């Protein structure tokens, strides 16, 4: 298993607000010590709710954002890393024809003839399930699913090792989401790609990823093989998250309420970050929690062993 990229203890903070003398008043702690490794052929899912730092993580991996602390090893820069963004409406330049969009990663770096670029664009479009005659059209002539296909073709054009998929299907309908996920799966097999799949959607991650990292307030709270994590979630937050997802077949809601609110990342909680929301909180939680290894590559940032759920 070859490592495509490895992040060690990445921390990112942004200044928030300045006082009247122009000094920074406080910091937003977006990432607080994230370590990850991604291997070729594999899909790593990053699961978390808004504000957990998953988009910042994507920016760090693509090199758009220099981390405040920590190190990145492995492939870097535009050569080997590509990206597919969430909103296919905004991620394609409306003033460019499709062939230019698709080949942008190539012509930014190399001088190639127009014919060359167009030929390659045609091939890529066909590969993602569009038709050759589409290359001269503009983005607004396509549906959301088709646009996401174009974005995928673009991500492929630089022949990357890793593609960061930042919520690639959250703006799409379920039926279209299925098409895109299938396509991504096929492409991964064909090109031996490593995927980092960022999403808040539990079922998509469960379905699509080999491995999953659950993030909370800029930390990974649980990580491991997807089958394992979803079958036996060990962290209270993971459990909360999985329980919250409405599911067909669970029956009518009982009307029972959980009071739960994400704390601000301006002032990080002392000890376990999840403590204030955790119904298992107790002694030992006031200390910072390290990521500990359970069996089978399953890691957990909690000192407790929770009872198995009913």
């Amino acid at each position, binding site marked *: 298993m070859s490592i495509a990229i490895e992040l060690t203890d990445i921390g990112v903070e942004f200044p928030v607000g300045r006082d009247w003398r122009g000094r920074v008043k406080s910091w937003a702690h977006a990432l607080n010590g994230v370590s990850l490794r991604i291997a070729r052929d594999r899909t790593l899912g990053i699961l978390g709710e808004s504000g957990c730092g998953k988009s910042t993580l994507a920016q760090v991996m693509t090199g758009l954002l220099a981390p405040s602390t920590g190190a990145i090893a492995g492939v870097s820069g535009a050569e080997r890393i590509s990206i597919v963004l969430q909103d296919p409406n905004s991620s394609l330049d409306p003033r460019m024809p499709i062939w230019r969009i698709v080949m942008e990663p190539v012509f930014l770096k190399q001088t190639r003839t127009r014919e060359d670029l167009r030929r390659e664009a045609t091939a890529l479009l066909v590969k993602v399930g569009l038709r050759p005659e589409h290359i001269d059209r503009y983005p607004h002539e396509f549906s959301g699913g088709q646009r996401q296909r174009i974005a995928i073709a673009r991500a492929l054009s630089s022949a990357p090792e890793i593609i960061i998929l930042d919520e690639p299907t959250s703006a799409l309908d379920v039926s279209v989401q*299925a098409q895109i996920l299938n396509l991504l799966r096929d492409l991964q097999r064909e090109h031996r790609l490593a995927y980092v799949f960022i999403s808040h959607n539990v079922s998509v991650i469960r379905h699509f990823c080999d491995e999953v990292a659950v993030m909370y307030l800029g930390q990974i709270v649980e990580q491991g093989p997807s089958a394992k994590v979803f079958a036996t979630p060990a962290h209270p937050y993971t459990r909360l998250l999985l329980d919250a997802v409405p599911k067909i077949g669970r029956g009518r809601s009982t009307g029972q309420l959980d009071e739960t609110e994400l704390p601000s990342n301006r002032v990080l909680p002392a000890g376990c970050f999840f403590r204030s929301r955790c119904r298992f909180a107790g002694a030992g939680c006031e200390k910072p929690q390290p990521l500990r290894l359970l069996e089978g590559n399953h890691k957990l940032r909690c000192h407790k062993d929770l009872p198995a759920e009913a």
Partner: protein
Amino acid sequence: MKLQPSAQNRPATAGPMSTTPVLSIRGLSLEFPVWQGALHALEDVTIEINAGEIVGIVGESGCGKSVTAMATMRLLPEAAYKVTSGALSLLGHDMLAATETELRHIRGSGAAMIFQEPLTALNPTRRIGTLMTEVIRAHRKIGKKEAQAHAVKLLKSMRIADAEAVMNRYSFELSGGMRQRIVIALAFANDPKIVIADEPTTALDVTVQRQVLTLLQNRARDVGAAVMLITHDLGVVSEYTDRVYVMYAGKVVETGPTASVLTKPCHPYTHALLAAGPDQVAPGEALASIPGTLPDLREDIPGCRFADRCAYAQGLCRTTPPPMRQDAGGQSYACWIEEEAQA
């Protein structure tokens, strides 16, 4: 599989109801004029919601669910659309003929609406208290103090702890979940008989979504209001609605009690929609996607609107629109194909 164009099909809503419905949409067809033609946004839509019911309207983008909601409240820009046929009655008022004064009376008091984006749904430059008392006093002849007290009571009913303090805040100072709770409080300000909630939790995280939907459901039960819950999430439909209407391309394709529709779908579209969910197959396996795309609603579609993407489509499907048929379990669907054929 055989086609069954039979005379014994009955209209879906034919059964006698114990009470008069709070909302009754019958055969509503609505179009938006566009260049050299019209976009047929709704076609022969029939929806009925009874007092105290929570009814889901589910479908993918472009299916017409939001247009239905907006049309129900007569909130579509007047110049931009045209109702070509059908009737729409909300709390006994003919909404298609209602005057501006009538509408003002119905909106916010008898019928309320909740929108998708809680951030933008509240005027950012006015305090929560001002917004709430304004709506309260628009429908009740009470003083400012009284209205404020009522507003605080409403906020508390939405489990907002320091309601008095929140009255003085602006919407942007609150979290998304908090905002949506305020929006719900606002919707219940004048004891509505029906609340139309258009994708109320799409912009929220799942943990918050659960709170908000639960609060909405509980509150509706407490005051006996019906809820029209519009969503694209079948899980939400499953957990929070009594009945469901599945819409596709401007038409209702299937309706019935939620549990039976979701476990025993009759229409090929409902079936396909359920099957496309990533939960439906083992991890790593290919998902059952629906091929093709939504038909162009500007064109005249002679037959079933799903025919082009339907695995079972036959000749008749492409020439004649299927009528609504009812099965024994109170489930109705618009399809030419017999239900057992799909099982």
